[in-house]
């Protein structure tokens, strides 16, 4: 192969192998990036231009020329934020806000929901439906929510828009969080751009620890166990109830490892470069209630929905009944955000219902705490069990291709369940079982112990051991990978 071809392949967009954090191409470019960054990071202008350039390149390699859509959103919302801020009269402020919402949400609606609306319209009108060939630009749901938060904060006068377009572009397009979050708030991130970057050795170590953790979760655990899950979810009727149940538990772990693994890598890369992106997951399957679950799962999205949707609808300020309705609507729309399908609406709606029931329970049925220690422990165990299985149950609808498949799966589990499958299942799928158990065991590490483990890695482990662990991790990723790099689940949202 000629060098020109190699360079062309390296630099051009290939839809069949987009550049993701877990791809070899990313490692190659990231090393070059880190070397150059070490020379540039102290000068704000050079750092900003360099990181922005790399972020655009990263997005191009992941999504091709849909980079232009990102740039349009960027330019339009930067100008509109200033227009809102400078407008003297409230009606103009509102007008500019509506214009901005229409632009951002319009693009999102076009790319993500056009076929969904057309399909449902065809269904209602009895016409045939021919889907339009529309490609969903990677990360559009994430950067749209980020830009909305910026615009709404400016509108509410909670944020002064930055006069520096480069800072705004950096905040929006910083490559670690660009395509799958965390959804970072301008109030939190923009001040970091104004400060001198101080690279703290501990933060660098912590960043690398997070990158390794994320890579393990995504490329080893999630990608391997997805292979079995995919088989069962494709045809649950051809598998026993036991096998279906294993796939449901498997998917429960897979989606957590996939998405939190990505977040870990994003946050870790941010720390390595001297930026804090916050936290996005906090052991969600340890939650003792569905409210608690949503404080731990995809925290940046939950907080966004709370601040910009739930509170805008009235939150809990208009009475209990209205609060429950607001919760339900918020989660319904949150479900739709995940994908243009009724199954996501159902998934979100059920979570909304769960949240409302929990709020009702805490207010009217069990307002206090248990006095006895054992009573409290048993209650917590019961609460965890119910919460965990409510979440697991709803993942079936989230993952299944349609409602029929989801019901087939549930029917198989409830009507064709036999523990006799345990032994042959272990014989054939022992690696799936081992990795699933490892994943849940890691997740079960108490939150109190986790910082201690992190500190142990940072302060006590010699670098040579860390290096060996990293090489071993890369080889593990190679051993467990399927032939092509698996996309991150949340890229489709």
């Amino acid at each position, binding site marked *: *192969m000629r060098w020109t071809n*190699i360079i062309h*392949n390296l630099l051009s967009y290939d839809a*069949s192998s987009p550049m993701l954090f877990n791809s*070899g191409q990313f*490692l*190659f470019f*990231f*090393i070059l990036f*880190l*070397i150059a960054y*070490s*020379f*540039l*990071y*102290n*000068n704000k*202008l*050079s750092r900003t231009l360099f990181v922005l350039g790399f972020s655009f390149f990263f997005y191009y390699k992941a999504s091709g020329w849909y980079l232009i859509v990102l740039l349009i959103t960027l330019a339009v919302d930067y100008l509109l934020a200033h227009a809102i801020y400078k407008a003297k009269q409230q009606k103009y402020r509102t007008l500019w806000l509506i214009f901005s919402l229409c632009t951002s949400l319009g693009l999102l609606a076009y790319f993500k929901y056009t076929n969904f609306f057309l399909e449902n319209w065809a269904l209602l009108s009895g016409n045939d439906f021919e889907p339009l060939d529309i490609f969903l630009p990677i990360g559009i749901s994430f950067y749209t929510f980020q830009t909305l938060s910026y615009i709404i904060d400016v509108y509410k006068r909670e944020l002064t828009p930055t006069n520096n377009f480069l800072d705004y572009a950096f905040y929006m397009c910083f490559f670690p969080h660009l395509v799958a979050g965390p959804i970072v708030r301008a109030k939190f991130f923009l001040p970091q751009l104004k400060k001198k970057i101080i*690279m*703290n*050795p501990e933060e*660098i*170590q912590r960043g*690398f620890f997070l990158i390794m953790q994320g890579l393990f979760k995504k490329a080893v655990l999630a990608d391997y166990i*997805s*292979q079995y899950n*995919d*088989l069962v*979810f*494709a*045809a649950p*009727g*051809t598998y026993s109830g036991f096998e279906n149940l294993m796939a449901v538990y498997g998917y429960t772990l897979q989606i957590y490892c996939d998405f939190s693994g990505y977040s870990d890598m994003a946050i870790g890369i941010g720390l*390595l470069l001297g930026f804090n992106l916050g936290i996005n997951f906090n052991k969600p399957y340890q939650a003792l209630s569905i409210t608690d679950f949503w404080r731990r799962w995809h925290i940046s999205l939950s907080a966004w929905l709370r601040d910009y949707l739930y509170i805008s609808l009235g939150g809990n300020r208009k009475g209990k009944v209205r609060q429950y309705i607001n919760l339900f609507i918020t989660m319904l729309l949150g479900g739709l955000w995940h994908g243009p399908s009724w199954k996501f609406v159902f998934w979100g709606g059920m979570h909304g219902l769960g949240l409302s029931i929990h709020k009702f329970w805490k207010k009217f049925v069990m307002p206090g705490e248990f006095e006895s220690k054992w009573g409290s422990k048993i209650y917590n165990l019961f609460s965890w069990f119910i919460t965990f299985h409510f979440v697991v149950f709803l993942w079936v609808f989230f993952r299944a291709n349609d409602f029929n498949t989801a019901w087939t799966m549930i029917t198989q589990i409830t009507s064709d369940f036999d523990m006799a499958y345990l032994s*042959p299942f272990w*014989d*054939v799928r*022992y*690696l799936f079982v081992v990795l699933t158990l490892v994943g849940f065991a890691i997740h079960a590490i108490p939150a109190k112990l986790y910082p201690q483990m992190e500190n142990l890695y940072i302060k006590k482990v010699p*670098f040579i051991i*860390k*290096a060996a662990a*990293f*090489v071993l991790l*890369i*080889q593990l990723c*190679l*051993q467990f*990978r*399927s*032939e*092509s790099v*698996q996309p991150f689940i949340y890229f489709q949202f």
Partner: protein
Amino acid sequence: MKFFKSQKPPRDYFQYVWLLLGSLILFSVLSFTQTKIVIGNYELKDSGIRNFFLPEVLPLANIADTIKKTGGNDKVDSSAQKFLLIGDSMLEFLRVRLNDYCRKNNHTMNTVIWYSSSSLWYGQCDTLKYFINKHKPTYVLLVLGANELFVKNITTERAEYVRNIVAQMDPLPFVWIGPPNWKDDTGINDLILRYAGKDRYYPSKKLSFERTKDGAHPKRESAYNWMDSVAVYLQTEARYKILMAKPDTFLNKVPPTEILKPNPPF
């Protein structure tokens, strides 16, 4: 204004840059030198870096057409067949549809799945022969090759195994159903074609598939269509042509299957 400022990041930063760079160099060297590392029963997988820079271009098999035909029939044999469907995980849904064909055409079938298997595994042991002796099929359908689409130097390294597999099935009527490629392979289809011959090799790679989320396995409906195409081949093009009338219904029933652990035989 200085574009570059002299203050350097702390030592830890460079330690990790060197670690990343060192790892990249290590895996590149291993890949370019095609070093094989075997620990116990496991061979460490290659990073594929060499293949990115120097993709193998293999000649098409050109001797398949010259293989001397032995046996075969020109007319369709309508008698009841006893199939042995054996191979890797790609036959998960094929077996369901083949079951429909068996019911429709009075054939019977036995199924064996050896997960993660390849010609390397089947070619180094007598597992195939064992199941042929056990079930005494009149027709063998082998689904194999998907786990070795990207093996380097496959045409030289696996030829012996492919030949051995064909020898285990000979002289029974058989069809080797080629892998449903999701990318160009490095030569496994050529190898199968070379040793099985055009009329005992079904080139699944010519079909397009809807895949499950792993990007490799065909979805159920797609696999059913795949089996339908194989059935047409069995009735019209295979060396031993048999009756494979298309069933009108989908029973979606998994036939009894013997499952082998995804472990190599050595």
